[in-house]
């Protein structure tokens, strides 16, 4: 909060409110998804984005629908932030035909073509090539869109990243590598799996790199706006390391996790650095919204989510004949 408050305020209250709204939408989406898992209504497992909302929202609010993102196994936040609707998202999570991918992708492959989300990916680091290739296409075709590649701290151990950074730097591609450093990959602390400095790795390829407080949506958004504008002009690529935290376990089933991280640590992040609480206080402080308005917005989002969940639960599965459809495009 303190930090957000020190940022230069923006006059555009609508932008701020939309950012707040999007963060709450993500949190609410995840709470419902978790609930679906706990009540055994959701097939498989899923990875919650709660706690990291300022990252996805701060970045995606600096993008247009023409700009692309690639997402991760922890992808609901990116999907919401890039403009997706609850209904199609919940349908996808439940494997229903009205899902974004007709239920064929599920949580780990949710994609939303119409808003430029090229999809979540169940291979850690698996979308680094895709994002960079999207940027290569933009450059070759003289298009000024920018692609943001989201990935976690753990994904920095994948050799693919170094290969694509090298090409992005050589060819000045309009891609921004956004590393969501939440301190853990699965059940392991980042410092146990990352030698040296992650920032220095990007810098070694001549890529301008920034570390930013991932719990401060305005800080993230301002930096991203600047970098996106520069990337559009051919000054990319860029690297951003966003310091953040996931509130839940690695996935919804990771409940007993004290062997790898303490409850105190979790409590500290939740109580003292929550991106939504911080930004809400800021909005009220700056007179951009009243507590009442915010409560109303929250309530509205909760209703939206509940309705979408109810809709998705009742929605039909894809018919059996879709099983061998879409293997090949015409």
């Amino acid at each position, binding site marked *: 909060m303190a930090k957000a408050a020190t940022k230069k305020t923006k006059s555009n209250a609508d932008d701020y409110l939309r950012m707040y709204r999007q963060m709450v939408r993500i949190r609410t989406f995840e709470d419902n998804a978790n609930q679906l898992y706990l009540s055994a209504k959701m097939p498989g497992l899923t990875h919650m984005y709660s706690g990291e909302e300022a990252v996805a929202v701060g970045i995606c609010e600096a993008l247009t629908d023409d700009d692309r993102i690639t997402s991760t196994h922890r992808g609901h936040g990116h999907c919401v932030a890039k403009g997706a609707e609850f209904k199609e998202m919940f349908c996808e999570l439940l494997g229903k035909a009205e899902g974004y991918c007709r239920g064929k992708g599920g949580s780990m492959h949710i994609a939303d073509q119409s808003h430029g989300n090229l999809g979540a990916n*169940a291979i850690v680091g698996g979308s680094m090539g895709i994002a960079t290739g999207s940027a290569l296409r933009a450059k070759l075709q003289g298009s000024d869109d920018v692609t943001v590649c989201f990935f976690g701290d753990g994904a920095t151990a994948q050799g693919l990243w170094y290969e694509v950074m090298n090409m992005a730097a050589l060819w000045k591609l309009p891609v921004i590598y956004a590393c969501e450093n939440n301190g853990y990959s699965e059940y392991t602390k980042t410092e146990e799996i990352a030698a040296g400095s992650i920032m220095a790795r990007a810098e070694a390829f001549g890529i301008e790199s920034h570390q930013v407080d991932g719990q401060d949506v305005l800080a993230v958004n301002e930096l991203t706006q600047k970098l996106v504008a520069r990337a559009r002009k051919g000054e990319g690529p860029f690297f951003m390391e966003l310091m953040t935290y996931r509130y839940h376990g690695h996935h919804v089933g990771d409940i007993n996790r004290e062997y790898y991280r303490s409850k105190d640590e979790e409590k500290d992040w939740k109580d003292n650095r929550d991106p939504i609480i911080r930004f809400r206080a800021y909005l009220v402080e700056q007179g951009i919204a009243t507590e009442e308005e915010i409560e109303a917005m929250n309530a509205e989002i909760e209703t939206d989510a509940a309705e979408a969940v109810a809709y998705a639960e009742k929605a039909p599965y894809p018919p059996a004949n879709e099983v061998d459809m879409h293997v090949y495009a015409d």
Partner: protein
Amino acid sequence: MREITLSQAVNEALAEEMRRDETVFILGEDVAEAGTPFKVLSGLVEEFGTDRVIDTPISEPGFVGLAVGAAMTGARPVVDLMFGDFIYLVMDQLCNQAAKQHYMSGGKLQVPMVLRTNMGATRRSAAQHSQSLQALVAHIPGLKVAMPSSAYEAKGLMKTAIRDNNPVVIFEDKLMYQDKAPVPEEEYLIPFGEANVKREGRDITLIATSSMVQVAEKAAVMLAKEGIEAEVIDPRTIVPLDEETLLESVKKTSRAIVIDEGHQSYGVTAEIASRLNEKVFYHLDAPVLRMGAMDVPVPFSPALEDLTVPTPEGVVENARKLCAGEMIHAA
């Protein structure tokens, strides 16, 4: 005999071999304190320490490469690859490096390593966490490939794999980790290349790998009620393949279905069916049928996913047709 889960069986095999041979060590993601996401390795780091149960970064090509180098210079690494779908990432290290060292060096270098990984759909894990990719590695000379069908096989094959002087890939079915089976307290090994006749029968041979053995056994029970006696055989290792046992059975039954959870086309079932056709052709009363997974990426939706894998009912239907001679001039 006591019953233990497949997960415990693998754990025991590793613990026993690590006690026996101090050059054996484990390498992989979250294998130590976490004991893997499937908890198969729980307790090992407590007994053997972090020098022998080593957590790696998420660098599959890298740590498989490390295993190859360690194996070439005197250690016996067991690599844990969290999902079989990640085998694509390590194909170069596995197939260009590990598989070929012994041959390329004219017999001077050896790569005694084990790659444990898994396979199997219907866990609602979607297209990149549900594949059964045994056919890919079975195609590459220099690799051995084991597919345990129960806790008993999982333990015996793992111990043999660790003592083998070649790179061995073991595919465990991730849906079977909690399945229990009788496993002796005493030490035993299961030699590679020895198929196991799970059930005798005279009318048709069902050759099945991994979890498909259960599918075949269920089908056999159903078929028995109709008076069709199915013989169920588990090859246990697909490289080397115990051709003899398979051929003997089919000579007797004159009919066969081969069942494997990998995609059907260009898959494991094609090789086994081809060998039967080539070598006992004149004993066959009907074409050898293959049942693999559908040739589609594994869909997330439960409504679709369940349609993609062979089922006991499907096996029964095919067996019935074969025995009734209905497959004549199918084409």
